[in-house]
């Protein structure tokens, strides 16, 4: 498609290219249209955050109110609560959810029996394909009073519990560990593939040096997949504020709002359930900005210390 041509100005180059590759441009039209309508047009909508949206007046006719909604959010107790919960859930996620697939991949990588490995992989990948609604349904079934998980907790603590989803302190573990159950296998794929491309010579060298299996894991395998880990970590931090609101909406209830309500679920509740469109837009904008800054910051830190970065 890019045959050699003399250097043109952008405009004439574009015109020539349009003529030559008209078919390709034709195919591009619906895609561009889609992006315009479904991704970029809503971006204009963030202006709602600075207006007082009234459905009767419409988008253009609603009055400008400046930073009113931001001030309201920043002075409400919900700012601290939602931001703290968002961070805490994600710290749990990074601490357990992010590390467990690496651990699984490390263990799987040491397995020699091909059939055993296949079976383990097939079964651990499986929950990834169960829909979120069903996963949360299963969590509800297992954690209701008398459910299998509640029985376990009863047995450990020696006292009887009502539905575990009603206890604020239970929310983070339930949320995090059900996520691990669902994704540990799937997320390990990428690490396994990184491990399979490690030069076997490195292991042989380690053997000669008398390294045992654990030492080789620590000193050969892990450092070799470090770039993969770092890139996935940047992505994980980048999705920090946005992640998981669907699952939270399916699992939380007024009893656990104190620990479960995150920015995204708060936006959903205020915006769509209570129809405070402008206020919710403002909250959403704050979270977008914080999210973007976090991604930028992680990327910079990573660039500085490991010379690996996404952009």
């Amino acid at each position, binding site marked *: 498609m890019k045959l050699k041509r003399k250097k043109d100005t952008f405009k004439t180059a574009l015109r020539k290219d349009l003529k030559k590759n008209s*078919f*390709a441009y034709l195919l591009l039209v619906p895609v561009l249209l889609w*992006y315009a309508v*479904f*991704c*970029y*047009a*809503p*971006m204009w*909508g*963030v202006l*709602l955050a600075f207006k007082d*949206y009234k459905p009767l007046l419409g*988008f253009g006719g609603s009055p400008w109110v400046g930073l009113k909604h931001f001030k309201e959010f920043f002075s409400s107790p919900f700012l601290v609560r939602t931001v703290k919960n968002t961070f805490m859930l994600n710290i749990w996620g990074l601490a357990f959810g992010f590390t467990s697939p690496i651990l*699984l991949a490390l*263990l799987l*990588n*040491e397995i020699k029996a091909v059939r*055993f*490995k296949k079976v*383990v992989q097939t079964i*651990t*990948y*499986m*929950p990834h*394909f*169960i*829909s*979120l*609604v069903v996963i*949360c*349904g*299963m969590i*509800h*079934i*297992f954690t209701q009073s*008398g459910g*299998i998980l509640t*029985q376990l907790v009863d047995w450990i603590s020696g006292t009887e519990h009502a539905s575990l989803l009603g206890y604020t302190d239970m929310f983070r573990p339930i949320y995090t560990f059900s996520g691990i159950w669902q994704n*540990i*296998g799937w997320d390990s*794929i*990428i690490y396994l*593939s990184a491990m399979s491309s490690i030069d*076997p010579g490195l292991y*042989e060298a380690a*053997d000669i040096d008398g390294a*045992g*299996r654990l030492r080789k894991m620590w000193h050969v395998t892990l450092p070799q997949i470090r770039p993969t880990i770092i*890139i996935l970590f940047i992505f994980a931090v980048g999705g920090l504020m946005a992640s998981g609101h669907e699952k939270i909406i*399916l*699992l939380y209830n007024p009893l656990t709002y104190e620990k479960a309500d995150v920015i995204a679920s708060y*936006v959903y509740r205020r*915006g*769509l359930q209570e129809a405070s469109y402008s206020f919710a837009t403002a909250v*959403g904008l704050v979270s*977008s900005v914080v*999210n*973007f800054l976090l991604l930028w910051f992680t990327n910079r830190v990573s660039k500085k210390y490991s010379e690996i970065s*996404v952009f």
Partner: protein
Amino acid sequence: MEKKKNVIGKHTPENVIFNIINYGVLTLLTLLCLYPMLHVLFASVSDPTTLISHRGLLLKPLGFTLSGYQLVFKDNSLLIGFKNTFLYVGLGTLVNMLITITMFFGGGLIPWFLMMRQIGCYNNMWAMILPTALNTWNMIILRTGFQSFPYDLEETAVIDGASQARILIDVILPLSKPVLAVIFLYYLVGNWNSWFNAMVLLKDRDRYPLQLLLKEILVMNDSSMTSVGSAGGVSVNSVQGATAYRELVKYCVTVIVTLPILCVYPFLQKYFVKGVFVGSIKG
């Protein structure tokens, strides 16, 4: 993996202990992954009254009854859900595939919602299809696939006088079958499992896809199915019995909705896994 046959096979004490622990941990993990699914499956065919008073692990069905499934299929709201889901999944995936040929900074939920309502993507079929017509991630996967073809290929076709449409149809598409299969599956599973857009954009119950109905039954604990207890030829005559059946129905519904995907999954596994790799090259 076979290449590293070096030490792993050696029978030093350290190796033996390591292997025992490693196999043990992995077996345990696998069982942990498997058990919740089996639990639901066994429970769905168990006798509801025994089930509700049962304590501890469920390693086999308690008795055997299909009355839960009878109840589920007697009530037609779930069947309508199935029909809707098939429609949305079928048409949605088709549109995905046709159009295929903001990840970090979007407008946010509310402006998006208002926009959808304004352009008419609200409470109708299009609301389930257009907003998800394209997925940037899948597009990157496909692009990476296209880029892996040698440039000469196109050049040769151009010299042979092929038009661009012809190159696309006769050269590129047949070669991209594996990548297209990956994308197709991703869209398929995504459409089958999606519920959030339906909850936000659909108002009429008879347009609900399966997952949204499931949400009501499983998560909101609201089931009209059990109130018509005797409908399926199953007589439920006490309050306790009704509760037991409500639980049974939950298990059955979970199995019905999950089984189709889990049954095809082992055969398609390699395509899904391939998608992870293709996507990661340019990640």
